[in-house]
C-alpha cells in the first residue's frame, strides 16, 4: 500500500476539521462522517496491521502491536498539546470555549494515553519478559497520565465555574511540562523502551500501515473532542445559565 493513500485521507480529515470550525452549519454532519470513516479504517487497520504488514526483524509478529500502540500514544500527545494550548489561551483571554475545549481534550487524551499504556504493557510481556518495568519512559508516561487525571479531578471537585477554569488552566500548563519530558525520556536516559517510532524510522510498508493507524485514530479524535466539547458546554450552560450554544444572535437594529 503506498503511503499516499493514508496521506490523502489525512488531508481529507484536515479539510473536514477546518470546514467544521469555519462553517458552523456543517458541524452536525462532519463529525459523523469522520467517525464513520474511522470505523471503516479501523476495520482495515485490523487487516493491514495483522496480515498485510511484514513481521518485525527481531520481535516478529509481536511487533504488529506497533500499529495500534504508537498511534494511540500520539493521539494522547495531540490531545494534551491541545489542552496546553487552550490553557494558555484561557489565561490570556478568558473564554468558556477554550475552557470547554481544554476539558474535552484532557479527557480524550487520558483515554488514549491509558489505552496506549495498557497496550505497551501487553507488548512488554513477550519482549521484555515483564508486564511493567520502572523505566524512564514508563515512569514519565505514568506521571503525565496521572497529572491529567489530577487535572480532571480538580475540575470535578471545584464548584465555581470561573475559579475552576482558572485553576485548571494553571494545572493544565503545569501538566504540559510532562509532555517534552515524556517524549524525550528515551533519549535523555537509558531506557528499555526503544526511541520514538515514526513513519521514517521503519520500513516503507510498515510506515504506511503506521500512517494508516495514525489517520484512523485521528478520525476518532476529532469527533470525540467535538462531542465531549458539547457535553462540557452544556454543563457550563447549566451551571451558569449561559445562553445556549445555538442561540440566535440578536440582529443589529
Amino acid at each position, binding site marked *: 500500500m503506498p503511503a499516499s493513500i493514508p496521506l490523502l485521507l489525512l488531508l481529507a480529515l484536515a479539510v473536514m476539521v477546518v470546514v467544521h470550525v469555519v462553517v458552523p452549519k456543517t458541524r452536525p454532519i462532519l463529525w459523523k462522517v469522520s467517525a464513520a470513516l474511522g470505523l471503516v479504517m479501523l476495520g482495515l487497520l485490523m487487516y493491514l496491521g495483522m496480515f498485510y504488514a511484514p513481521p518485525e526483524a527481531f520481535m516478529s509478529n509481536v511487533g504488529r502491536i506497533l500499529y495500534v500502540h504508537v498511534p494511540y500514544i500520539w493521539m494522547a500527545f495531540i490531545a494534551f498539546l491541545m489542552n496546553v494550548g487552550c490553557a494558555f489561551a484561557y489565561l490570556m483571554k478568558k473564554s468558556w470555549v477554550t475552557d470547554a475545549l481544554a476539558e474535552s481534550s484532557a479527557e480524550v487524551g487520558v483515554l488514549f494515553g491509558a489505552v496506549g499504556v495498557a497496550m505497551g504493557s501487553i507488548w512488554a510481556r513477550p519482549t521484555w519478559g515483564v508486564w511493567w518495568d520502572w523505566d524512564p519512559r514508563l515512569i514519565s508516561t505514568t506521571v503525565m497520565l496521572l497529572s491529567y487525571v489530577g487535572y480532571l479531578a480538580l475540575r470535578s471537585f471545584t464548584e465555581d465555574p470561573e475559579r475552576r477554569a482558572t485553576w485548571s488552566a494553571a494545572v493544565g500548563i503545569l501538566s504540559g511540562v510532562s509532555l517534552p519530558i515524556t517524549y524525550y525520556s528515551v533519549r535523555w536516559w537509558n531506557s528499555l523502551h526503544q526511541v520514538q517510532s515514526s513513519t521514517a524510522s521503519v520500513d516503507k510498508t510498515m510506515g504506511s500501515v503506521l500512517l494508516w493507524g495514525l489517520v484512523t485514530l485521528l478520525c476518532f479524535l476529532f469527533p470525540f473532542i467535538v462531542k465531549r466539547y458539547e*457535553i462540557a458546554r452544556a454543563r457550563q450552560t447549566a451551571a451558569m445559565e449561559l445562553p445556549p450554544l445555538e442561540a440566535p444572535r440578536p440582529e443589529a437594529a
Partner: protein
Amino acid sequence: MRALFAGLVVAASLAFADIAPPEKAPPEPAPAPAVVEPAPAPAPAPQHPMGIEKAVGSGVIQGGWEYVYACYALAVIGVLGYGASLFVRRPKEQAS
C-alpha cells in the same frame, strides 16, 4: 586362668578378624555407551491461519499472537467504549 583367657581372646580375634588381604575387586565393566536418543523436535510455533509465520526467521520472538490479538481488541474496545460513553452522556437537548 589368665593364660587361658588370653588364649581365648587371641583365638577369637583371629577367628573374627579379617586378616586376609583384601581381594582386588574385579574391574567394573565399562558402561555401555549410552544410546543417544534424538532430541525431540521442538514443538512448532502456533501457525497463523494465513501462514505469515513462514516469514519469521530464527533468533526472533516466535508466536506471541495472543498479545497481538489482545492489543487490537483493546484498540477497538477503547474507541467504541468511549464513543458509547459519549453517547450516554450527551446533552439532554440532543437526547430528546
